[in-house]
């Protein structure tokens, strides 16, 4: 029907054109770069090669990918361990207070990322509040090296992404039908057993969403390793940055970008599958 086609074009056309032009084309170009050689003075020589990919699995870069994955994985696990009980506590709070509690959790998430990260430089440096506190309590005699290492990066990532984890798990828990939990207790399960056998399995989609989110945003992160790692610990994001702005090796930077996106897509896809499976098995958690 021509009329509905016109309507579709008016509604979708402008936005999709924009995205096609400034998202699809640039990313497509980047993908193409990955198969060409680096120019002598930076830029691209349009000679087909697969060398960028073989270079990316060189132990040097492989170890950077592994370090990034390890840091991202640690951040995800720690964020889950802190976030799940917090989400649970909010979901069990009186209904009229839950929104306020959640807004309070989410608020820092929407403020400036650089500043939130900077705060940890202030807190963690040798003269910072944490070291001073520890010294004041007589727990350490020498200031601990808290900044510019893996610990600092993981702390920064957990701090920045914890709000989302709490939110994702909260929405899973709050969708839980309370009668299912009562049924479990009615059938003789203790509260801890109900948690392990019923609550946790049913809220797994939220856990997966939160974990994948933290992992995906962490593994490709640039600011946190840059500021809190102080250049001493390289992650993929920093290497990509260097390839473009320092080494001026665009094809290799593009290759690394695409491997990164590939890893993220696999994770997001598995998470979507998990959610679909959970919905297929027991609609209760998503009723």
């Amino acid at each position, binding site marked *: 029907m021509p009329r509905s086609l016109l309507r579709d074009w008016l509604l979708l056309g402008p936005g999709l054109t924009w995205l096609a032009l400034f998202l699809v084309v640039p990313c497509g170009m980047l993908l193409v770069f990955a198969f060409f050689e680096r120019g002598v003075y930076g830029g691209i020589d349009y000679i087909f090669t697969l060398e960028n990919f073989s270079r990316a699995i060189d132990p040097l870069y492989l170890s950077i990918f592994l370090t990034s994955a390890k840091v991202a994985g640690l951040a995800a696990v720690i964020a889950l361990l802190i976030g799940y009980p917090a989400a649970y506590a909010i979901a069990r709070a009186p209904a009229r207070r839950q929104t306020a509690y959640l807004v309070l959790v989410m608020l820092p998430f*929407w403020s400036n990322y*650089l500043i939130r990260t900077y705060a940890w430089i202030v807190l963690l440096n040798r003269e910072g509040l944490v070291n001073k506190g520890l010294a004041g309590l007589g727990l350490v005699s020498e200031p601990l090296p808290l900044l510019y290492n893996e610990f600092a990066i993981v702390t920064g990532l957990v701090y920045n992404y914890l709000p989302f984890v709490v939110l994702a798990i909260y929405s899973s828990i709050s969708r839980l039908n309370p009668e299912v939990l009562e049924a479990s207790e009615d059938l003789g399960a203790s509260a801890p057993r109900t948690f392990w056998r019923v609550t946790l399995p049913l809220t797994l989609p939220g856990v997966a969403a939160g974990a994948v989110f933290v992992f995906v945003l962490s593994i*490709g992160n640039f600011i946190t390793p840059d500021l809190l790692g102080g250049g001493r610990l390289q992650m993929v994001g920093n290497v990509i940055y260097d390839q473009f702005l320092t080494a001026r090796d665009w094809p290799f930077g593009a290759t690394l970008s695409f491997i990164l996106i590939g890893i993220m897509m696999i994770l997001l896809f598995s998470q979507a599958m998990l959610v679909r499976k959970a919905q297929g098995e027991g609609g209760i958690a998503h009723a």
Partner: protein
Amino acid sequence: MPSPARFWLGAHLRLVYLFLYVPIAVLMVLSFNRAGLPTAWTGFSLKWYGALAESQAIINAALNTLIVAVISTVLATLLGALLAVGMEYRRRGPGLEAMLFAPMIIPDIVLAIALLSFFTLLDFTLGLHSIILSHVVFNIAFVCAVVRTRLRSFDWAVFEASVDLGASEATTFRRIILPMIFPGVLAGAMLAFTLSVDEFIIAYFTAGAGQSSTTLPMQIYSMIRFGVTPEINAMATVVMLVSFTLVLLAQRANKGVVGV
């Protein structure tokens, strides 16, 4: 009497709030520290706020940020809201869905270099306008997502009812759809504005050389990266308060912006 489990959950939640807010509070307190050192309290002073107000570079950066945020928000809100209605009007394929989801999850650094390469290859002069073009990309996706959430809670029969009562599709859009999604559009716009104000890497890559198109996050980054200056605490305080106010306003306009 609360059970022990309940007690520990409550205690844990309090600790989480401490974890989230202590770093922010420390910056805010330090912004009033006379000596400007992060290590010791030397007395209350507003002088860093004064320094902030006098720094031409910071004022310039703030103005640039405002220009980028306002223009990219207006554009993204317009395009994103239209997209949202178009996407919800009829089920769309997974390809379109992926295209709208991608800007929200692609690492900033990747989108930044993709756009930089694109602009460079086209010999496009970089500046505030290229930052704006780039910010619209991810802002469209966020505005669209917020507005779609609102649209999903509607009974679509309402739009048929309007047509049944004699309205054309254009009139239905203006008289029914627009007023109904307005809170969502407003919330989406506020979200887009906040994101644009805070965005660093993409702006950094697409701003081009020279100081003229430095934005506030770029200014903050260089202040952090190349030696901590005491003004940064004052600036952090101002930026945080502005963001918090915006997010709370957006939350009021439309439940569900901050995800709640």
